[in-house]
């Protein structure tokens, strides 16, 4: 699904050049649940941004869903993000003046789905998250866990191939964190590749593979027990 070969990325701030990623080689298969760990400054967010087509890499080859990603127009990147990727953020990033249902429906708006249909679909997804009764509520009326569940519903409404989660539990207490992780695991079990960036060990250990980043390089890759692997617990879908 995702193949990175010798990815480099630098940022230029004024006259300084900051070399953030110094040659990343990585292969993530379809349906994997992977976590990326590292201290701040290790380049994990940059890596996620490149994976999520939110930023361009300088060097190397990035293949996403059998397609090589090169410098492309914003419009094309937006379309790929919309069709292929779903994002979950630490700070939820819901739009404050839209209610839960409208937030969930927004990606479908950019797919030009009719209003009624996308609101209906959004309600279904909110129902799956156990938030049907909260559909009309504004984000500031929801708890952190609820907000993150709305964000997750929004990320999967377009039925993407990959979910990219940037510290999805960073702003949540431990009980809610477990709930959110279970949701992400469920999503993963439906066949969607899930990549989680985290700095929490217990969260990372709930994934199949932990990729440790240090100073822009992959320091180690730890294979967890295959409790989540497709072979053992593949739940038939639909």
């Amino acid at each position, binding site marked *: 699904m995702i193949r990175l070969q010798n990815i480099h990325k630098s940022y230029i701030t004024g006259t300084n050049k900051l070399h953030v990623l110094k040659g990343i080689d990585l292969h993530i298969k379809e349906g994997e649940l992977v976590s990326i760990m590292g201290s701040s400054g290790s380049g994990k967010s940059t890596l996620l*941004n490149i994976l*999520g087509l*939110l*930023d361009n890499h300088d060097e190397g080859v990035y293949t996403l869903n059998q397609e090589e990603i090169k410098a492309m127009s*914003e*419009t094309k990147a*937006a*379309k790929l*993000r*919309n*069709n292929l990727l779903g*994002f979950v*953020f630490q*700070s939820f*990033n*819901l*739009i*404050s*003046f*839209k209610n839960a249902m409208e937030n969930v429906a*927004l*990606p479908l*708006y*950019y*797919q030009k789905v009719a*209003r009624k249909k996308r609101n209906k679909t959004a309600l279904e997804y909110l129902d799956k998250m156990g938030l049907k009764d909260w559909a009309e509520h504004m984000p500031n009326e929801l708890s952190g866990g609820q907000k993150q569940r709305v964000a997750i519903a*929004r990320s999967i409404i*377009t039925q993407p191939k990959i979910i990219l989660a940037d510290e999805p539990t960073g702003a949540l207490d431990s009980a809610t964190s477990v709930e959110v992780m279970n949701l992400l695991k469920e999503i993963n079990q439906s066949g969607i590749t899930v990549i989680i960036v985290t700095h929490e060990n217990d969260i990372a250990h709930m994934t199949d593979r932990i990729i440790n980043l240090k100073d822009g390089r992959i320091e180690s890759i730890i294979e967890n027990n295959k409790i989540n692997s497709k072979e053992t617990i593949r739940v038939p879908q639909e």
Partner: protein
Amino acid sequence: MFDRDKWQEIFSTISKNKTRTVLTGFSVATGIFMLIFLLGAGRGLRNGMTSVFAQDATNSMQIYGGRTTKAYKGTPEGKRIQMVNEDYLGFKKSIEKLDVISAMSYIPGAEIISYKNNYGNFNVSPVHETYKEIKNFEILEGRFLNEKDIKENRKVVAIQDVVKEVLFPKETAINKLININNIKFKVVGVFNQPSFDDNSREIYIPITVAQNIFNNNDHLQRISFTLNDISVDESKKVEQFITYQMAKRHEFSPEDKNALWIQNNIENSQQFAGLFSAIEMFVWIIGIFTIALGVIGVFNIMMIVVKERTKEIGIRKAIGASPSSVVGLILMEAIFITAASGYVGLIAGVGLLEVITKFDLINKIYPPAAIYFLNPQVDLGIAIGATIVLVVTGALAGFFPARKAASIRPIEALRDE
């Protein structure tokens, strides 16, 4: 472009910042209001002035005798130039492109005019029948003087409507006999004439009657005529021609500016038209600058809006908003604010002009000015022009902020806490 979501989003941001939006819109509305009102008022002024000056046909000229200021061929300065019938006949024959010509004489002494017990002091002007082509009369009843009246020395009279009100407050005037210096004249017509002078009370009698009965001479006070199809340059040549002819006949220096007074309405009306074009242009400049200020306000607000919504725009882009959809969002908001508030200004400006016309406000506030102000209005062309200006400026005010919004990188936007 017209889907509900975009509008909903525009209204939700506008309603979150009501004061800011209203203040911004106010500046645009003021600009359009000023433009429309000033243009309408300018048009009213032009209409008013034109109707006042229309008492003389715009292709007419008038000649009055003056007094010489230069000694010439043995005659000392200060000689009075008295025009006579011969001058009138001479011009009638010799001026090229002449349309109609009329002389005017005068009757000396007090002019007491009466009918039964009603009487008044009115201005009696003896003229030719062609005078009605030179002044813009509106005949209300009967007719003006005609050729036969002149030729046959008929004692007939055409009176102004205000004169009729004094002499015949309760009855018709036509065919009644009125006394002018104890001579009876038959009323043949009642007319109305536009004038600067509210006190104008005119009575016209055949010039031949005045010369034969009252004066017993052939003196003329003024000669008026109209010219066909004439340019300003040609009219100046006619002036020169008249001066030379008169100078020869009455023996004064053709260089003497005071021997003869010539009122050239062709030149005057052209200067007038130029003056009003200049006023109109000035108004446009003021209006456009005022609108420009308003638009800069909108531009500023949209920059702030984009700044405030950086994160939201980042989210939208992360979940698949294309740059063009972001541009559309900001652009439409800018156009909406300008167009809506501009429309308010347009309605207010047109409304004020309507109110002024409907309730005759100028006449109530300052009556003397009222005749110089007629039918203030903006035509459809100006309204359409203003609308186009609005949409274009709205788009301009939105374009740069929108471009800025479109260039927001999602990662930076999402980091923006």
